[in-house]
């Protein structure tokens, strides 16, 4: 992946890091400051009766953390393949969770002006989009994802 162009001067202060991830055929970007660790493929345990979007747990640093089915949650049509290559461990507030992706690229820093309202992409939790390496991808708000999952899980009977 080519290095992103950064403008000089004051605009550089508005630069923003993003982490591009691929789920199936779909590329998304997230805030890399939420990522705790990037792992390879990890086994996990399915919890019976769990929501499809929150199907189980995996062991990380001697604790059990929730596994999210991010593709389902986003409604983007993207879903990690049967044996996803990468496991992303992220943290929002006091909630640590994992989700699976097929590809994770290096963190890129892009001009904040290059991030705008979504036009070419749509989906839940997508409030912005960006263009990177000729790919338009949604910038996913993981905090909003966790907020909705927590409220849904609390009401799931």
């Amino acid at each position, binding site marked *: 992946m080519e290095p992103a162009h950064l403008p000089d001067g004051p605009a550089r202060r508005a630069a923003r890091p993003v982490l591009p991830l691929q789920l199936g055929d779909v590329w998304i970007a997230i805030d890399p400051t939420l990522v705790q660790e990037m792992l390879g493929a990890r086994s996990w*345990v*399915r*919890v*019976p*009766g*769990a*929501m499809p979007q*929150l199907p189980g*747990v*995996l*062991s990380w640093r*001697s*604790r*059990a*953390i*929730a596994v999210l089915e991010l593709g389902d949650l986003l409604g983007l049509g993207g879903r990690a393949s049967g044996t996803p290559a990468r496991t992303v461990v992220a943290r929002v507030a006091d*909630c*640590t*969770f994992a989700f699976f992706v097929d590809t994770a690229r290096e963190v890129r820093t892009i001009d904040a002006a290059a991030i705008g309202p979504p036009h070419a992409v749509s989906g839940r939790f997508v409030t912005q989009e960006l263009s990177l390496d000729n790919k338009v991808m949604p910038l996913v708000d993981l905090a909003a994802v*966790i907020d909705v*999952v*927590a409220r849904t*899980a*609390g009401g*799931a*009977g």
Partner: protein
Amino acid sequence: MTDLHAADPPVDAVTFLVVDAGDCTWGIEAAQVESVRDPSDAEATVDAGRLGVPCDPAASPRVVRLHGTPPASVVVRGRLAIVTVPRADVQQLPALLTASPRHRAFSSIVLADDHSFLVVDADALRGSC
């Protein structure tokens, strides 16, 4: 009758009565279990399936009687085993999962290399009986 307490586990280990219910394996701390018996007409029991605990409908029913108050006898269905794991392998379930009323019976999970199973909270079972 299954002997749950043939040997006390080491201090840094926990013994579970584990039920392999096919799609899901779960366990209950052996120290919470008074006995495992065949069903009898004389005993009031609650089917674990009604409490949200997985069961294998094809398996023969066994009655797990729990220690404590109030007394509780729960019918479980699945392949039973006694498993001892390092205490460090017993991990709290994430709050995201325990928030669901469906999972109130589950308190933690054992995630070990050779054993992975959900742990059912004995107090939750007693309270549901």
